[in-house]
Each structure stands twice: as C-alpha cells, then as structure tokens.
C-alpha cells in the first residue's frame, strides 16, 4: 500500500530525484495511516460522540429514532446534584487507590525477592505468575466466587480452621465494605503478575556496579533501594502506576460478575454506575455524562504520569 502511493506520486511528479524525495517524505504518513484511521474511527470518534451524547436526552425512543434531543448541560447538573453520584465517585477513588498501592507495593516486594531466591525457586515463582497472568479475568472471577462461596467456599473453611473467627456460612457480600475488600483482593491478585514481571525486568537492568558502590559507601539495604534502585526504575514505576490507575479505575468485570450481574448500589463504582444508567435504565445521555466525568477524573489523575512517560519516550 505504501509503495503503491509512493509510485503514484513518483509518476505524477516531474524530476526523478525530486519525486523520490517527496515519496520518501510521504512514506511514513502512509505507514501510520491505517493506524490513525482505525484508532481515530473506533476510539477517537466514539470519544467525541460520548461528549455529544452527554449533552443530549437520549433514551430508548431516541435510540430507535437515531436522534437525540439537545439538553445542554442538564445531564451534568442532574448527576452533580445526585448524592448517589458523589458517593460513587468517592468509592471509586478509594477503591482505585487501595488497588494501585497494594499492587505496586506487593509487586515490588516480590520482584526484590525474585532477585534473592535461587534460580530454581525463581523459575517456580515466575511460572506461577505467568499462569495467573494468562488466566482470563472472567475465569478468575468465577474461581474467586467459588472460593468465597458462603456455604462451601474454601476461604470460609480455612479462616475458621485458623481460628480467625467463625466464618461458617459467612456471606462476604452482605457487607459492602467486606465485599469490596474481596474485590480489591481479586483485582490485586490478578494485577500482581504483570507489574511484578515488569518491575523485575527493570531491576535486572539496574547496573549492579552502582548498587555495589552504594554498598561499599555504607548504604543499608533500604537506602540502596530508595536512593539507588528506585530512581533508576522511575520510568518503570511511572508506567505501571499509570496503567494500574487506568485499569483499576475502570474495573467492571470483577464487580459485575462477582455480584451475579446485579450489583446493589452499595457496590457502584463509576464504571458500573455509568453502565447501569445507560444499559440498565436506558438513559444513554445520563450514562454518557457519567462516563465523561470518569474520563475527566482519569485525565487529571494521570496527566502527570503521561507527561513523564512521553518525556521518557522522547529520550528513547
């Protein structure tokens, strides 16, 4: 395709060397063209449409007629006045920060541990991580649902046997705080492999001579990590924190499927709320407004990371 375009330009143009230079100038645009079309058409256009939808009244009738009714900022006024929405935003932010911080801390610890174990154990841990990583999220959600089953679940049995309390017939999802705790566990467990393997790959690239030099200069283990290893790994930490924030803020499957596709409003995160408003009660305009707020919050939270990431990319 690229060469075809280049050939066209070549035949149309006069001087050979001039056309050659022109086609070489246009070649990169031809190469990125298909990506721009796909990403622009299937992600960019819907994003613009989302904003447009959020300014419409768009219910079931409008869906059939394929045309909305312009209402300006009414949808936003409605959700901002809605106490449930405030609750949902706070819950989403707390949920995301719990997931992200636990993921990063635990993954860093496991990655550091991987540097110190013997090669055989390292292979075992790596294989375990890869197994968990590769398992589809829906599969893992079904497994955890089974393990946390109130009647025959293995977790209740183990906790009771360990004398941590009486968990016989304990339903974890009756209490939303406990239920969300379980969901955090499921999300973090699923996120650890990618983050650990990425951080570990980064640790391997930290030049050992500078760590040794710090050791010779009398730096303790914690100081060596905090002042030598961690700054070297900054780009890696930026990327995994940024990605984790985006993923965990948009968590949907774990909540939706763990609660049998009928989560009560105590479990609404912003993603679930937006979904319910649009596909549950067919208020697509309102759902779109919630999604717009979600994207805006995410943009603000991750702007810092993205700026830093682009900086790193430019250097590379």
């Amino acid at each position, binding site marked *: 395709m690229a060469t075809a375009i280049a050939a066209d330009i070549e035949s149309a143009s006069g001087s050979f060397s001039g056309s050659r230079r022109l086609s070489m100038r246009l070649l*990169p*645009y031809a190469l*990125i*063209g*298909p*990506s*721009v079309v*796909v*990403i622009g058409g299937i*992600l960019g*256009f*819907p994003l613009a*449409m*989302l904003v447009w*939808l959020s300014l419409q009244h768009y219910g079931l009738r409008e869906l059939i007629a*394929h045309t909305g009714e312009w209402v300006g900022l009414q949808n936003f006024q409605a959700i901002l006045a809605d106490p449930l929405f405030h609750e949902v935003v706070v819950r989403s932010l707390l949920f995301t920060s719990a997931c992200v911080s636990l993921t990063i801390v635990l993954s860093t610890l496991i990655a550091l*541990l*991987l*540097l*110190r*174990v*013997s090669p055989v154990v*390292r*292979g*075992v841990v790596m*294989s*375990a991580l*890869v*197994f*968990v*990583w*590769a*398992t589809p999220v*829906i*599969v893992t959600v*079904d497994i955890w649902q089974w393990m946390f089953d109130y009647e*025959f679940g293995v977790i209740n*049995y183990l906790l009771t046997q360990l004398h941590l309390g009486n968990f016989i017939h304990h339903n974890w999802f009756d209490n939303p705080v406990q239920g969300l705790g379980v969901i955090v566990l499921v999300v973090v*467990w699923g996120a650890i492999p990618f983050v650990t*393997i*990425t951080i570990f*790959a*980064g640790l391997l690239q930290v030049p*050992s001579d500078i*760590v*040794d030099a710090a*050791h010779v200069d009398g730096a303790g283990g914690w100081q060596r990590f905090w002042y030598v290893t961690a700054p070297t790994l900054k*780009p890696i930490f930026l990327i995994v924190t940024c990605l984790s924030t985006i993923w965990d803020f948009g968590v949907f*499957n774990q909540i939706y*499927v763990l609660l049998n596709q009928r989560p009560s409003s105590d479990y609404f995160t912003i*993603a679930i709320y937006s*979904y319910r408003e649009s*596909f549950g009660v067919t208020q697509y305009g309102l759902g*779109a407004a919630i999604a*717009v707020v*979600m*994207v805006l919050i995410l943009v603000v939270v*991750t702007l810092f990371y993205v700026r830093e990431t682009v900086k790193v990319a*430019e250097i*590379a």
Partner: protein
Amino acid sequence: MIAPGTAQGVLAGRSRSATAGRVRANLWHRTRQWLFDAIGLAVAAVMLFPIYWMVATAFKPGRDILTLTPKWFPAPITLQNFQDAIARPFFLDDVRNSLVIVGVMLVLALTIAFFAAVGTARFGFRGRTAFLVMIIGVQMVPLIALIIPLYLMLDAVGQVDSLAGVIAVYLALVLPFMVWTLRGFVANIPAELEEAGMIDGCTRVGAFLRITFPLVGPGLVATAIFGFIQAWNEYIIAYVLLSSPGNQTLTVWLASFTTNHGPQWGPLMAGATLTGLPVVAFFLILQRYLAGGLTAGAVKG
C-alpha cells in the same frame, strides 16, 4: 530470565567483608538463602492456589465438591463436569466465535501495527510526536466509557450482534499497545544493517524485508500473544454487543453460567478450565519472547 550478577554480586561482597567469622557468615548466608527460597515458594503457592482449586474442583464428582470440609485432592477423578460443560447450549458455537474473532483481529492488527511501528521507528517526520502522544493518550481512555457510543455507532450501521463489529472494536483496542511495543523492537535493530544490505545490492524494500523483518520476529510474536490474550479474555464489549447466544464468545458464555438454583460449581469450573486452557498453553509456549517484548519499548533511555 535468569538474573545477572546483581544478587550474587551483593551477596559475595557481603561475605568478603566478614573476614573474621567466615564459617558463621557462611551459615548465616545459607540460612538467609533458605529463608528467601521458602518465602518465594509460599508466594508461588498463594498465587497458584486459586487456579489449582479450579482444576481440582473441575475433576471432582459432585458430592466431593459440596462438602463442608473441603477435599484437597480430587480423588476419585471424574470427567463428568467437562461433559456437562461441553453439553451446555452454545458451547461449541461460542468456541468458534472466539476463534474467528481473535484470528481475524490478530492478522489485521499485526499488519497495521507493523506499518506504524516502522513509520515511527525509522522515519522522523512532522507529526511523529503527535502520533506517539495519541498512541499513549488513547490508552488512558477506559474502554468502559466508550461502550455507549460504540454501541450506538455500531447500531447505526447495523453491526450490533455481529462478529465484524466486535472485531473492529478489538482491533482498535489492541492497536495502540501493539504499535508502541513493535516500535521498540524495530528501533532496536540498527538501520546500518539495512544500509549494508543496500550497498550489497538490495533495494530499500528488499533490505527491509530480508534483514529487518526476520529480526523483528520475536517482537511480532510478543505482540501477537498480547493481542490474543486481550481479545480472548475480553468480556464487557462482547457482552454488550453480542446479544444472541449463538453469536457470543466464550467469556460471555462462562459469565452466564448460572441456573435458577445458583451456580453449578463443578461444570462451571470445568468450563473455566476449558476457557483458560488455550491462553495458558499459548502463553507458556511463547513466554520467552514476551519478557523482551515488555521492556523493549519501556526501559530504553
């Protein structure tokens, strides 16, 4: 994946400083190593237990599943749960749908992403930074936020409940990461190799096809794995877009695996095992390519 001198180097340095009590240091060193290994094995066990529990449950007969005191090992073993899972309506249809969606999507995505990777890694041009910013920025938008417009857009062109619509969405979903990762791989291959080929009589395209393309092989494999996993495991898009049971994918089939009497854990775990199996197999066979793939774009500089 094996660590270079880092850990060993530090440990060696430590034992060197302890000249006085060499034996005691050695003992301490061995105890410490043993302790780290034990913690490592514990971590592996905790991470793996849920997956073990799925497989173990899948092979247990019904009466061994619903027990107040869990049976830790599946004995006797039965295949009844797998038979029940496969016999459920639309299993084979949904396996076929998943395969078609992932296969078509991967071929398209790898081709398009490869072009863009070469474009951004080999050429400096006006708009290159803007393109890279778009590639990163677009990954910030959570997919869940785009479900509504995607649904309405595909509804307007009659592609709701069609595999083509889902393929198009998955294509856009995996493309940014694929371009980014492949770009790292292409950039790591020195352009001088191609120039040498051209001096030896290759055309520019010929040099690219004969020299750079084979060297990018591992990168293509790594991105293919990524795309495969993303698409095979995706749930919410397929759930919203594909409404008729015969058109759905395996994950949607699996998530709807409940009856009026609550979940049947045995067949559900068997179905989950069958859904996860292709991904795990694919992943384990090809994972050595992946370690390089992850870091190729990320750690440079």
